[in-house]
């Protein structure tokens, strides 16, 4: 049976002690699942259910209620573009989405066939004075269009040993929770506990 790695297991146990009952630790437990496996799949939900002593159905209900948990059908590089009014107003969201489509051939709601990239429109990410706001996996980016986005895409493509040509003209796969997919090597989220770097959001 799947279990947490020893150091995360210690954290999970501390978490259970931190809440008045085990069920209430569920949301934070799911974050540990996300950190250990990179995303929350069926096995991860079973694991959280076991620790929090709730049914898997309850966990599934919670996981699907919230939009930001990383699921297996999301790409390894998950781009979440804010499309709410303040980011959309000056055409910022659209420009970011067009730029992504031009490089990766993906429209909002799609994942590349190789599972490395996915793009989605999300609702307000709360940095409305710096549009467009984009969350990349677990990193918060602001004013993420034009050069900044281009640079990010360059480095992400280079890190995967790919070029835009690998994606141009190839149809993306529509992301859907009901279609089982083989997740790609997950991006592990390293928590930067303790005082972070001086100033700024570390993005």
């Amino acid at each position, binding site marked *: 049976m799947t279990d947490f790695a020893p150091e995360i297991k210690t954290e999970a146990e501390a978490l259970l002690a931190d809440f008045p009952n085990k069920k*209430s630790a569920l949301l934070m437990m799911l*974050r540990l699942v996300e950190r250990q496996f990179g995303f929350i799949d069926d096995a991860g939900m079973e694991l959280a259910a076991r620790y929090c002593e709730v049914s898997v159905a309850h966990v599934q209900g919670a996981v699907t209620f919230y939009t930001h948990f990383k699921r297996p059908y999301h790409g390894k590089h998950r781009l979440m573009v804010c499309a709410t*009014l303040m980011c959309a107003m000056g055409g910022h969201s659209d420009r970011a989405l067009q730029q992504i489509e031009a490089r990766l051939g993906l429209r909002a709601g799609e994942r590349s066939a190789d599972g490395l990239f996915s793009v989605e429109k999300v*609702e307000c990410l709360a*940095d*409305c004075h710096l549009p467009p706001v984009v969350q990349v996996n677990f990193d918060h980016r602001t004013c993420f269009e034009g050069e*900044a986005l281009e640079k990010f895409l360059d480095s992400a493509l280079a890190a995967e040993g790919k070029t835009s040509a690998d994606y141009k003209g190839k149809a993306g796969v529509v992301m859907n929770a009901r279609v089982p997919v083989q997740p790609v090597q997950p991006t592990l989220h390293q928590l930067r506990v303790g005082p*972070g770097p*001086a100033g700024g959001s570390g993005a």
Partner: protein
Amino acid sequence: MAETTATPPAASPSNPVAQTPVSAGPVSPSPVAGPPPAAAPPAPAAPINQVPFEPVVSAHFGKPNSHTIAYYEGHGGYDTARKFIGTPQAEIVQTVKDSGLRGRGGAGFPTGMKWGFLAKGTGKPSYLAVNGDESEPGTFKDRYILEFDPHQLIEGVIISSYAIDCHHAFIYLRGEFIVGYERLLGALNEAKAKGYVGQNIFGKGYDLKITIVRGAGAYICGEETGMLSSIEGGRGYPKVKPPFPAVSGVFGCPTIVNNVETICSVVHIMKNGPTWFRQWGTEKSPGFKLFCLSGDVNKPGLMEVPLATPLSKVIDHYGGGVKGKSVKAVIPGGSSSPLIKGDKVADITMDYECLAANKTMLGSGAITVLNETRDVVSAIYNLMRFYHHESCGQCTPCREGTGWLEKLMHRFHHGHGHKSDIPLIWEITRNMQGKTICVLADAAVMPMQSYLGMFPEEFEAKCQD
């Protein structure tokens, strides 16, 4: 005036310093009750905000290492908590009551009064739940508090928890606050290591446990009972009120829910006294507040100003003026608040009463400026999509109504509206208002009615018949 803005360092992709705040979820509908402005003779102009104001809550934003305990203690941090833990709790509650502090999350309910409602002698533990799920589009103030001054929040939690005699506090953050969470967690660990949180705080025999909970992208968790459901470990479904959380909140126990900024203000009120706090603002809206300025202004950002500051000053002085030729409309308090038309901007002061008298609300203090080029129909289409997406689906009027409004607005947005749709929109909104468990439906309806009522010609122009 010596007011200075607390605008964080210039925001640019190359300067990631200026990234990070929290949001207040759906806000309660404003008490639109107030008499119409015409009926109320203008109050004799008592001079307000004559005392120079320097940022208080945001004083240390953008300073290097402002999130560390060394910096915080170097600037008098935790002295207030040290001073008041062990003193009579009723006096702390009375001080907050006297200050007239109103909730900064949206509804503007007096904080001291709320604390007074906490059910006593129930035999159950009581809880403090700090609402850091600032999801209202346009709001980002709590993000900055968490990133730049998490210790201020922890000190506020210590004082507030002590005042209401609870021994376990939750801080609920929205999932988007990634750095904010890391900084708050780091700060909490530092405070625990120093003995400021935990057993026998400051040697005064008071115990407090603080638990941080992270959401994962749900606007509805900013609604207080939705947040409590989420803390209980499941879907963030709002609960029927009454019973109000102060009687039966998280885990069925008496709970006080306060916004992050409210809790931070408590620290300064305790430190300087209610009279100091009342130097700014009006009788009913005393003090100062963080405002989040976005949209068509030259210098969008976060600022801290006294309440009752004129809106035109906020836009022109702090916001660097409108970008474009003129102001078409202003969203004064987050996406749920009804609009203020451009020609009325000069009459508006940013306080609870003035905005209520103008049939809108202060909300979470998120001001968005729309210039003359903005299409009101596409703006409301965008917002209706937002509310439809964020409706939790418990109540039929909201689940269906927000969807219908989105579909109708989609039609108008693409120029395929019908004249007969306009009465239909009014009917749908009337069938949503006040008919649901929480106020998300009202939060969707208020902008819809306001945009349509204020700019009917723009909707008619998008009709195909």
